[in-house]
């Protein structure tokens, strides 16, 4: 047994880890060691990728490309390939992943199972929107080939399906043309949420990437830094200089606390405000600002941290986000990384996908036990009343009632589950 934790570092649970390296052998491993669940980089925050005391099928050794058609931009690869390796392979050839989350250190399988999104959701949707095909292995030995036009029901159960419908073995992704590794950016400070929404709406038509960092300490008013970007046609920009710095140890207490949050938020806001304007940056710092700070999740100390990411419908979006920010600041809590983004007006491919038309707010909180739980209960009430949902890739604690109201297609999804696959999250939220 090996102790494994997820990105939130809330638990260290023992698992029977099976390291997979040969895709021809996956079927026999999952047939003989279930119930288990696939586990890639462990970058999801909560319990979606964990199966304490049971089998964990580690996919990071299934990291081979299978084919790339440089004319059409169709890439076929094993599910353990990292998005980083895809970007590094295809960008010099004039292609790019259409959708990528805030870290490139995730596997293709994880990106599918959580149907991840990025700053360009309003233009290009989710990761699942760009899949052409998938091979899914069931623990009973059945092989299911599916895609947007092939066994569509299996496809939409598996995209965003939390790895519960079978083992995702390989995937075919439609890449997108790009002229180089740079992004044209513009940074605009905003004083409140009304300004944020105006900026977001004004940017939707002409800017592919939009997102805002929110200073949620200062009175809960929603001041922040709005960032927008477009693929750049620049081609003589300086090369990226890579310097990965690692957080070397777990500090005894969270470094994110009352003493540090206010100065950090104030300093960050003012620094960015001062740097506001246009620029050209490399895609890596633009898309993946924290990837060079290796193991940054350690700063929250030995008890780990939670991420709370919700989406609420656009109609009352401003009031609902305002109410959440107010709860946080009146609880004296704050979040280092508060991120606000409007989603596009489109339904996701997956039955259990998170993105839907509305506005999403993501927040980090150090684990302070009951105090944190109480705050979450108040936030849950706001989200539930607004008809919103919580992102399962981030969740470690949502109550079943909120899960039920947030994911109305659950009943359609359950028949597609593989009886040989189970995770801590599936047991917590679905009962098995």
């Amino acid at each position, binding site marked *: 047994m090996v102790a494994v934790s997820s990105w939130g570092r809330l638990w260290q649970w023992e698992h029977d*880890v099976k*390291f997979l390296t040969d895709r*021809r052998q996956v079927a026999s491993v999952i047939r003989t060691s279930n119930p288990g669940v696939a586990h890639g980089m462990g970058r999801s925050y909560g319990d979606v990728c964990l199966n304490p005391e049971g089998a964990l099928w580690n996919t990071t*050794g299934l990291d*081979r490309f*299978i084919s*790339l058609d*440089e004319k059409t931009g169709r890439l076929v690869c094993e599910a353990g390939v990292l998005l980083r390796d895809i970007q590094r*392979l295809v960008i010099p050839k004039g292609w790019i992943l259409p959708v990528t989350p805030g870290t490139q250190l995730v596997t293709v399988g994880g990106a599918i199972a959580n149907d991840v999104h990025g700053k360009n959701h309003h233009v290009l949707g989710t990761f699942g929107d760009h899949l052409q095909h998938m091979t899914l292995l069931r623990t009973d030995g059945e092989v299911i080939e599916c895609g947007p036009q092939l066994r569509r029901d299996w496809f939409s159960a598996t995209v965003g399906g939390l790895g519960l419908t079978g083992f995702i073995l390989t995937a075919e992704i439609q890449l997108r043309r790009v002229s180089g590794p740079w992004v044209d950016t513009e940074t605009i400070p905003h004083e409140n949420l009304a300004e944020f929404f105006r900026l977001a709406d004004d940017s939707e038509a002409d800017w592919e990437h939009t997102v805002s960092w929110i200073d949620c300490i200062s009175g809960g008013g929603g001041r922040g830094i709005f960032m927008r970007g477009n693929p750049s046609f620049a081609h003589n920009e300086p090369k990226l200089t890579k310097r990965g710095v690692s957080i070397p140890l777990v500090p005894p207490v969270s470094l994110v606390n009352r003493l540090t949050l206010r100065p950090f938020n104030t300093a960050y806001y003012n620094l960015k405000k001062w740097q506001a304007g246009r620029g050209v940056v490399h895609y890596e710092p633009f898309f993946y600002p924290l990837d060079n700070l290796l193991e940054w999740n350690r700063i929250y100390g030995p008890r780990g941290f939670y991420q709370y990411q919700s989406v609420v419908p656009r109609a009352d979006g401003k009031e609902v986000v305002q109410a959440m920010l107010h709860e946080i600041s009146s609880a004296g809590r704050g979040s280092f990384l508060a991120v606000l983004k409007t989603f596009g007006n489109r339904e996701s491919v997956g039955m259990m996908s998170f993105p839907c038309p509305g506005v999403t707010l993501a927040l980090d909180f150090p684990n302070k036990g009951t105090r944190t739980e109480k705050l979450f209960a108040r936030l849950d009430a706001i989200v539930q009343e607004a008809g919103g949902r919580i992102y399962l890739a981030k969740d470690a604690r949502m109550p079943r009632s909120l899960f039920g109201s947030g994911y109305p297609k659950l009943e359609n999804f359950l028949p597609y589950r593989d009886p040989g696959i189970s995770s801590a999250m599936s047991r917590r939220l679905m009962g098995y």
Partner: protein
Amino acid sequence: MALNRKKVVIIGATSKIAEHCARLWVTESPIDLVLVGRDLAKTELVAADLRVRSPSSSIHCIQADFLAPIKIQELVDGIVRDGDVDIVLIAHGSLPEQHPCQEKLELCSAALNINGVSPVLFAEAFAGHMQQKNRGTLAVIGSVAGDRGRKSNYIYGAAKGLVTRYVQGLQHRLANTAVKVVLIKPGPTDTPMTANLKHTGARLASAEAVAKNIVDGIAQGTPVVYAPAKWALIMMIIRHLPKVIFNRLDI
């Protein structure tokens, strides 16, 4: 095959470390690459991945029996006949569990053969050709385990110690030629071979980082490459620990 391209041969090409070395080589520039493995189908999976990474490299897979001296000689003669070799990386091996090796001599013998004798036979088969052509770099993956016998893995350590002493001799033999011989000693690395070590919570180096050390060491012709480099210091201490202290350590 293009004339001015580097020709690289990897024995044990499906090993995780070797695969990462190959990825680094093909992304540097297109090469002629020969992948030798026990399991041809698995070797082809590795080759397909490398062809995506470097469509203009020429990649050829060969199945081999790693324990048959005559077949090894024929295989190596065949590879060399197709053109001079710039780099040979001998990377195969399998980490046995110590206790079963103590109990069953068949297991002990198999572990010694695959980790010790076999790499030496391959190296010896290439060395003659390379000496004759007076060019190329011959790299063999040993292990820090070969530096001092320890109760937790001395059968594997003995096989790797054999490789160490062999390479030392070969370096002496080829000292006055242009052929470079490199001994690589990885510390515990995150590969399928070490899956068991994770039980102990050991921090393992990534196969990717170790491969980078190896590719750099080969490019420079460094005689002994510890990967990662910190193992040079750790093993110097382990080698020099007095017996009274060493024998009390549970390592």
